[in-house]
C-alpha cells in the first residue's frame, strides 16, 4: 500500500520535472520554423505564388 503510494508520488514528481524541462526547451527561439513562417507570409504579401500561378493561367485576373 505504502509502496504503491511512494511509486505514484515518484511518478508525479518525475512528470512535473519533465514538464518543467519542456517549458525550458521552448524558450529558445525556433529559428528554422520562424524562417519558414516568414517565407509563407512574404509569399502572400508580395504575391509570389500568385505570379507563378498567373504564368500558368495567362487569363488569371490581377485585379
Amino acid at each position: 500500500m505504502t509502496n504503491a503510494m511512494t511509486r505514484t508520488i515518484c511518478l508525479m514528481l518525475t512528470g512535473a520535472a519533465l514538464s518543467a524541462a519542456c517549458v525550458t526547451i521552448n524558450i529558445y527561439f525556433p529559428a528554422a520554423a520562424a524562417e519558414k513562417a516568414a517565407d509563407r507570409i512574404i509569399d502572400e504579401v508580395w504575391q509570389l505564388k500568385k505570379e507563378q500561378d498567373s504564368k500558368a493561367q495567362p487569363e488569371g485576373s490581377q485585379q
Partner: protein
Amino acid sequence: MNTLKRMVLLGAMWATTAWAQGNIEINTPAISQIKSSMQARHTQLAPHYASGAVGLGADGNVVLRDANAVPLAQRQAVQGLVAQENTDRAALYREIARANGHPEWEADIRSTFAQRWIERAQSGWYIQSGGQWSRK
C-alpha cells in the same frame, strides 16, 4: 503497468516539445488582417522598390532612401505608404510573437523577417546591409 504509463507520459511530452519547436503559429485573425493590408499596399509600393526610392532596411522596415526618385507631387503619398507599411510590419512581428505565447520573441522575429525580405527581394531593388545600400 507503471512502465507503460511512464512511456505514454514521456511520449506525449516528446510530441508536445517537437510540435512546439517545429511550428510557428501564423494563422490568427490579427495576423491575417495585417497580411492583407500589407498585400493591398504592395501594389502601390512595388514601383518605388523598382525605382530605388524605397529600399528594404536591415531592421525589417522599409525606408524612403531616395525621395528625389519620386515626383514631387507623389512624395508625400509615398512617405505615408512607408510609414503605414512600417506600422503594419511592427504589428506583424509583435502579433506573431504573441500568437506563439512568447512576446519576447518579437526582436528575433523581426530580424528573421529582415533577412527573408532581403533574401527574397527582386533584382533591381535596394537592400541594406551593415548601414550600406546596394542594388540587388
